[in-house]
């Protein structure tokens, strides 16, 4: 199963908030071109783990290695520039900006982000904008939001916001994407389409995915391996079958009624 070097490694990572051990000594590896699942109950520390990886929080202890490089202590925008892109549990979109603007914001290091260049090198800025616009339009077409390109992002439905989020990760040109509950608030049927799109990101664009999910059918279907967290610790790790039959996981997480 371990065909290559891990792209991301956590080594004994801890994060405490006051007295609460949100993440309590977690270690795992994520291998390239796979969808690794991260499951566990609310409060198990999954989202905090994401926040630690992407630099939203600094770990109190332990190391986070991305492609062999220690990245703990970098901030959110710095990990983005390393090639890590994340989504959020509750869709966040830039509400009073259009769908197209939401995507055009994403490409890193745009020369038009330098105020002096917007005044003195308008030609360069313009050419780049046209390039980014065309890329954004083609992504919108592929996720099926092209007809909404001039709509305010805040006016999209729950499912459309998830698609916009997906488009955003495609726009980022990231090597690894961390999805925080991409299926939340999406009905079971739409969820299947979403799963297929995530699958195709991995298969066709050599992207690595780490995914937090609550919907067992989604996670069991597309993730391998799966990591189970409970009370800030890693409880189990393995293939979907191994996890589903792990007695400890059955007891504290899945319960008897599940397969």
């Amino acid at each position, binding site marked *: 199963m371990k065909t290559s070097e891990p792209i991301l490694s956590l080594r004994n990572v801890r994060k405490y908030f006051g007295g609460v051990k949100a993440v309590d000594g977690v270690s795992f590896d994520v291998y390239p071109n796979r969808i690794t699942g991260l499951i566990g109950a609310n409060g198990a520390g999954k989202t905090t783990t994401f926040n630690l990886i992407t630099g939203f929080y600094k770990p109190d202890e332990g190391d986070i290695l991305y492609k062999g490089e220690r990245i703990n202590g970098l901030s959110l925008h710095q990990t983005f520039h390393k090639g890590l892109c994340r989504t959020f549990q509750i869709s966040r979109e830039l509400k009073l900006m259009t769908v197209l603007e939401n995507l055009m914001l994403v490409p890193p290091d745009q020369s038009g982000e330098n*105020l002096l260049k917007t005044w003195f090198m308008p030609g360069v800025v313009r050419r780049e*904008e046209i390039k980014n616009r065309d890329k954004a339009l083609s992504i919108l077409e592929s996720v099926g939001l092209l007809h909404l390109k001039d709509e305010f992002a805040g006016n999209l439905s729950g499912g459309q916001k998830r698609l916009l989020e997906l488009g955003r990760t495609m726009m980022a040109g990231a090597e690894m994407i961390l999805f925080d509950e991409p299926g939340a608030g999406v009905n079971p049927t739409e969820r299947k389409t979403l799963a297929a799109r995530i699958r195709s990101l991995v298969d066709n664009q050599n992207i690595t995915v780490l995914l937090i999910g609550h919907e067992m059918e989604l996670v069991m279907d597309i993730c391998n391996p799966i990591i189970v967290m409970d009370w800030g610790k890693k409880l189990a790790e393995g293939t979907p079958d191994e996890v589903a039959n792990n007695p400890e996981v059955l007891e504290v997480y899945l319960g008897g009624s599940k397969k």
Partner: protein
Amino acid sequence: MGLLNFFISFAVMATIYSIFVLGLNVQWGYTGLLNFGIAGFFAVGAYTSALFTMHMPTGALANYVTQAFGLGMPFLVGVIAAAIASGLVSILVGALTLRLGEGYLAIATLGIAESIRIFFNNESWLANGPQGLVGLPQPLHNLVSPQYYSYVYLVIVLIFLAVIYIAVEKGIRSPWGRVLRAIREDEIMANADGKNVVFFKMQSLVVGAMIMGIGGALYAHYSAAIQPGVFEALFGTFIIWTMLTLGGTGNNKGGILGAWIVWAIWSWSTYLIAKVVPASFATRAPFIRYVLIGVLLIVIIVRFPKGIMGEERQVSKF
């Protein structure tokens, strides 16, 4: 003739206020930075330009006026120095406050502006303390006779307004402005999209503050006299907020419109109050404006939360 003169001096002040509104719009309208300390940047700009362009007092005057320096430089140098000084102060303010939440930023800037005013009031060695500075040089003043000077100055401030307007519009409609608006909408999201939020907020704060510094300098040279009392929160900060809120937050044209409307109400009300109110009450009459601007602000907020002109749907130009 009197009415025309009145109108021209009204227009000069409305134009200067339009410049302040543009500065605030960069900070609040496009980035969501609650700057309640405009008066502080206003004061820094005005005093810097005054100190750069005036000469050190000599002779008998030196006994009554103390100031740290007087470089006697040209008007334009004063304005540029005002922008730079105001920008530097904003970097200091930003370093202290930009990591705080939005409400905290508002109160911190309010406090800093008050502190700046207290500083100018207390430290007489710097700019003559509470008496302030008088006799600021006026550019091109020998071009026309003094009673027509406002006409010349109106042209000068209009040129400044036009240049600043174009520069701000260029910036806002480019990817730079897009990042600012993204920060306004959702800071964390902008950060997750790889933008260095603190750095961009700092840029917005500094650009806005430099514009306010220029506004302060233009005001100082027009009135030719400044003292700390001018830079109180009503005249220096809240009237500008009223203008932007009325005109339309996040819309530069709307902001300028708001500046002209509010300043019209403000200056006409002085005139009207003076006519209507009996002479025995004259000392208290100016305070009717306090009530007026207060009630106006409430009515605007309650009736037109988005202002006269709202933000356009598509801001980026590509």
